């Protein structure tokens, strides 16, 4: 009796946890085929951009015998949910992703269709897109993705009013940045707003400084499995520069308690409590939504400063190159899928994306830049991306998903002093590359 009464207690504590894991295990099954209801299923991240995707699907369905259906997964858990369904009968035919590491596990599991045959059929599927963007969905020399939303380079945003008050200009070089930081600090302003609580905004600083100091090759090597790249003198130089910036008080002292995602760090800039923020191009729209007056009057943007003596071209950019559509190998309607993908460089697509503030990366985008809601900003971004010798995909998206948490932890720990340069190098060398 006693034992029987105790048994439930023994297990109850862990049962909840166990359930969460095993439920997903139940869902896996043995592959199966794409659901074949004579349609192609297009799975996208559910957000405001779905408006365009719906429109494109409708356009496609007007002329195609095989109809397309748009499915959305809302919220930030897209990658998690995608990974749990992609090898099940519920898998889509075409799905949204971030290129790079986000599709690498699927390529390794032999689930994706290389798009080379499509491109042979219609070379425009490659040539009509900016190469720096298109290439970030190339895995092991094969193309796996067609760009399908807007590009999101990381830019250095500023509050022009704060800069005017302090009598400084946006910095063009790293040394100027350091002296600007000093001046701003003297004025009692936090020089740079940083949403360190989210961790990925901190990572953006690493991406740019590494690129400027060592060029894009260092990261490419490291990602390719050449882990000694992290110990190179360039890597150490980049880390010491970042350390210098943090120690100079550029980010204040409480950046780890500030988040970007709850609007706290953009508010610092909008309210004039901070002068700069390094953020993806969506920042512009974010400020227009959160702080209309500031966005109209004070919001400025520049490229990341150059580093003298660095190997990286100062025209290089980092960020999210674009989102992509990838195709599952087991799709029953490859011809229909190919036809659908061709719409991603159509004029209709470009116009619709521009109308909602996205900046597509097709070669015909240039024609429509003046139709955008903020033409000057669109021109700036488009020129930047088009001319960039290298567009480095964010590290946490270039690496496979298993590396995301360790990367985020390492950058946070380096910025708050929990680990030093050697600790950071070790952490990066421990990352799984496949």
């Amino acid at each position, binding site marked *: 009796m006693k034992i029987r009464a105790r048994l439930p207690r023994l297990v109850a504590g862990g049962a*909840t946890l*166990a359930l969460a894991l095993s439920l997903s295990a139940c869902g896996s099954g043995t592959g199966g085929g794409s659901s074949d209801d004579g349609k192609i299923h297009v799975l996208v991240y559910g957000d405001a951009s779905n408006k365009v995707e719906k429109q494109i699907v409708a356009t496609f369905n007007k002329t195609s015998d095989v109809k397309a259906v748009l499915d959305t997964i809302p919220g930030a858990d897209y990658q998690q949910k995608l990974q749990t369904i992609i090898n099940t009968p519920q898998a889509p035919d075409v799905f949204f992703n971030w290129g790079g590491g986000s599709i690498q596990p699927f390529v390794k599991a032999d689930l994706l269709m290389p798009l080379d045959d499509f491109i042979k059929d219609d070379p425009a599927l490659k040539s009509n897109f900016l190469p720096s963007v298109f290439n970030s969905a190339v895995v092991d020399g094969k193309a796996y993705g067609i760009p399908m939303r807007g590009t999101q380079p990381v830019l250095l945003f500023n509050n022009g009013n704060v800069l005017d008050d302090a009598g400084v200009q946006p910095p063009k070089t790293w040394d100027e940045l350091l002296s600007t930081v000093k001046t701003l600090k003297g004025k009692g302003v936090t020089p740079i707003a940083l949403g360190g609580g989210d961790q990925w905004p901190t990572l953006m600083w690493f991406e740019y400084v590494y690129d400027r100091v060592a060029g894009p090759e260092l990261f490419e090597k490291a990602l390719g499995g050449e882990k000694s790249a992290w110990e190179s003198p360039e890597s150490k130089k980049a880390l010491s520069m970042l350390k210098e910036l943090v120690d100079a008080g550029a980010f204040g002292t409480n950046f780890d308690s500030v988040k970007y995602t*709850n609007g706290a760090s953009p508010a610092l800039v909008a309210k004039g409590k901070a002068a700069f923020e390094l953020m993806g191009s969506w920042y512009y729209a974010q400020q227009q939504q959160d702080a209309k007056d500031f966005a109209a009057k004070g919001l400025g943007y520049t490229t990341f400063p150059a580093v003298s003596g660095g190997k990286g071209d100062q025209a290089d950019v980092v960020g999210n190159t674009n989102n992509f559509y990838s195709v599952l190998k087991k799709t029953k309607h490859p011809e229909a899928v190919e036809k659908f993908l061709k719409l991603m460089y159509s004029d209709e697509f470009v116009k619709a994306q521009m109308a909602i503030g996205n900046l597509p990366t097709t070669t015909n985008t240039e024609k429509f830049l003046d139709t955008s809601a903020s033409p000057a900003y669109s021109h700036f971004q488009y020129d930047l991306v088009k001319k960039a010798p290298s567009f480095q995909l964010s590290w946490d998206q270039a690496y496979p998903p298993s590396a995301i948490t360790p990367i985020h932890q390492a950058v946070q720990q380096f910025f708050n002093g929990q680990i030093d340069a050697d600790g950071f190098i070790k952490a990066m060398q421990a990352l799984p590359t496949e």
Partner: protein
Amino acid sequence: MTTETTSAPPAAGSRTPARRRSEGSYTAHVGRPGFAWAVPATLFFLIFAIAPLVMVAVLSFMSWNGLGSPRFVGMDNWSRVLDDPVMIKSIWLTLLVTVLGVAIQTPLSILLGVWAAGQQRNRAVLSVIYFIPLLLSSTAVSVLWRALLDPNFGIPAQATWLFGDGNLFGKQASAIGVLAFVSTWQFTPFHTLIYQGAARAIPQVLYQAAEIDGAGRYRQFFHITLPQLRNSVVTSMILMIVGGLTTFETVLILTQGGPGTDTTISAYYMYQKAFKSFDFGAGAAIALVLVVAATIISLIVVRVSGYDKMRSSMEGL
């Protein structure tokens, strides 16, 4: 019972002893449901608790990223998990958060509960207000406190004498403090409710007798109320411990395990491994470690507190 069956005479005997035996067992089991009654609950428990647990145990010996089929890797996950400094740290953090929760919430909720059991003016209104946090989801509570504790626009900005630069989430001690505070804020009302009910059930005659004997309020509290609440304390503590060991949403939203791994408690670490890194084998191993730890802890609590032979606290009344 069993001895009786084996010692029963073989087929040669008449039918009478058999009938007598069945009558006997009938009377012995009067008022007690047979095993059939427990079948639905047992099945439910098997399907939703034991089976998943077994599957997790199997999964902990496999390498699986959610794609393709799992592959047996022997002890690989286990040696990785048990060697992992973050895992070891996460266990200590889990224990710390649990102990903090119990240590802070128990006295608070006993005092509040006993107070709420009284008949004072405005008591009902205030009790309702105290109860509100419990009605909110953990997620909402965490989002709320994350915003309230923003260093530039939240409470810390208004009380720099207390919070300094407000870097609450940037240091381990303060980040854990925030976690403990937020769960206290959220769950104290629930435990208060337990104690309120228990305190109401204490017979008034005890207090009346104590008053005649000249015991003051404090003596009454320590010598009547507290001992009478003993069983409720055990119940509430077990709930707190289970809650503490499985703390998840607050960490996910408030600290994301940071700074670095300083608030990565085991349940959150399991989530990171399984659902962010898609290392389901390691996630399963961590889950099992948690199951074992939770089991050991609840066994200790049950033993020490005498929960398994819980006696009435009103003998002689």
